[in-house]
């Protein structure tokens, strides 16, 4: 009986985010029947697309025990440059290509500064955060850029009835999941995250792995930014601000460890993103008091991180006692 109880608790702590997700759906569904509609489920997915892509890139970086604070600025800079290009008459594909290049360049810059200058990721990406935002503000003259209708096709278009942002989200998640679980590169990411020194001794090129994860993160930031502005139809000077924190929160809610080496994109980060978006959506659907929003979001983060911390302590204890 005790054994069953113990394994039940173990299951609950292992799947805390999923359970919270289910509880949130049930609760909002009871409070607002419109919440459970098919259309609203699509809404949540569409709104989760940009953050989901961003958080996927962030997961790669977090798995190496790194952090990337520049993602919001990359989104902004890529948005400003592509927006200006389209407004000036450049074709959409050309603007899209430039967005991707900006993301890759920023990723390369972050990685190079981290492993060449041996500066911690927090400081490097804080610096590139300012570089990106400063450049974006300079280019845009701190003015909002209103994009032409053609830009909105990416945000509102559908293929076989499925919104394009949702297709992009699932494509990125699937690809990331395959890279992390089925490739040597993915295994090396976990190894570097667990212990970079041991990984180096095992013959893994830590620098190459770092370059890879920051480039992926930069690419995802630019792509996420593109998806977001295609839905908004405008790039304002505050675009992308604090997106880095939302991406980190989503990954951590999904079980990715800030200390590296633990977590996954699917279902982990995806569930984290959906949980955040579901709560935001549900609170509007039930017309909750606006002062409750940050409190509820904070409570969910505390709850999940608290359960995760307890789980970690149990794991450490078991390790000390030599138990599996």
């Amino acid at each position: 009986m005790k054994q069953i109880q113990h394994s039940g608790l173990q299951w609950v702590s292992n799947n805390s985010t999923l359970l919270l997700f289910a509880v949130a759906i049930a609760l909002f569904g009871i409070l607002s029947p419109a919440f459970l509609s098919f259309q609203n489920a699509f809404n949540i997915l569409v709104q989760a697309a940009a953050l989901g892509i961003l958080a996927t890139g962030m997961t790669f970086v977090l798995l190496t025990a790194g952090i990337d604070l520049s993602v919001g600025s990359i989104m902004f800079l890529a948005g400003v440059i592509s927006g200006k290009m389209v407004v000036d008459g450049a074709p959409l594909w050309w603007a899209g290509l430039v967005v991707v290049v900006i993301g890759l360049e920023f990723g390369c810059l972050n990685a190079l500064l981290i492993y060449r200058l041996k500066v911690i990721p927090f400081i490097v990406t804080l610096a590139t955060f300012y570089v990106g935002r400063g450049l974006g503000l300079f280019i845009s003259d701190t003015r909002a850029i209103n994009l032409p209708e053609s830009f909105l096709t990416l945000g509102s278009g559908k293929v076989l009835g499925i919104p394009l942002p949702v297709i992009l989200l699932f494509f990125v998640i699937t690809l990331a999941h395959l890279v992390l679980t089925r490739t040597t590169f993915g295994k090396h990411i976990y190894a570097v995250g667990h212990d970079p020194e041991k990984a180096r001794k095992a013959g893994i090129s830590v620098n190459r792995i770092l370059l890879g994860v920051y480039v992926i993160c930069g690419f995802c930031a630019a792509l996420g930014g593109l998806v977001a502005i295609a839905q908004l139809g405008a790039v304002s000077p505050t675009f992308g601000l604090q997106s880095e924190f939302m991406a980190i929160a989503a990954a951590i809610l999904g079980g990715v460890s800030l200390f590296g080496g633990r977590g996954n994109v699917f279902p982990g980060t995806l569930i984290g993103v959906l949980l955040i978006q579901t709560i935001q959506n549900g609170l509007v659907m039930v017309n909750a008091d606006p002062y409750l929003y940050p409190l509820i979001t904070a409570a969910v983060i505390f709850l999940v991180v608290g359960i995760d911390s307890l789980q970690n302590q149990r794991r450490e204890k078991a390790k000390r006692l030599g138990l599996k």
Partner: protein
Amino acid sequence: MKRFYTCQGLILVMVVLALACKRPKGRTTIGISFETLQTEYWVASSDALKAACEENGLDYLEAIANGDANRQFEQVNNFISRGVDGIVIAPKDAHTVIPVIKAANRAEIPIVIYNRLPAPNKGSYTTIVADNYEITKQTVRYLGDLARASGKQYKAMILIGDLGDTNAVLRREGFNDAILEYEDVIDVVAEVPTEWNQEKALAGVTNALQANPDIGLIFSSSDFLFPSVISALKNAGKYHPIGHEGHVLLGGFDGDAMAYQLLRSNYLDADGVQNVYYECDLAIQAILDILNGKEVDSVLVDPGFVIHQENLEEMAPKMWGANLEVP
């Protein structure tokens, strides 16, 4: 000997730099500190303040804190050490400006707080602020009158700004109090918190329209959230010009370039306008008056105005956004 010449050279460079940095005597210098320049409103304010300084033959120093209250405090301290004659500050928030006021008071430099009311404190300062509450109330009353005149029942939504920002809170209060007068025709079904973030605004408006597809009146606490509102309305098939049967009554606050364009293209019904030029002139004049020993009130209010389809031609020249191009 070589070391001696090096020292002499360094001293010479320092003297030259000090002379270069010293401002010319006789000119009054104003330190202008902005919390951020990340909206059109702040950029227009910064430009208008600099223009007002130039009109009055004043020099100015400018510093932007990029949303960091500590940095803003340091920047104002730098102004004080450089011996400015007056300070105009658009602070991060109502509380972090208090040490800045104290520092200026200690240095006996007049300080004007621009656009945000500080929390109650014993310092000596003048605040220039738009009447956020009253301007919003008048704007919403105009929308309420339109709703009542149509003879239909309306469901309404408000986009709220950052609840840590006094201006956002006052606009929300102005909206709620005005709506009370129209309870017979307007029912507020959604309050969407945006934290002044367009992405959150888009998601919030989309969700609110999902929960209440028959929403017929939307008020945005800032014009810069209009792209999000329009995108959500378009996706819901509810974006129609004034006169169309499915038109959603639309109101905003600020008076920016996009609001002006929307008024011109017949999509926006009314907009509460902060009179940037008036506020900036008041700010510079307040400092000059204090320097000349005149008494200045602790709060100078910009009554603003409401611009709508009926007074568009008359009021457009006073709307700061009408003088900007929409990129």
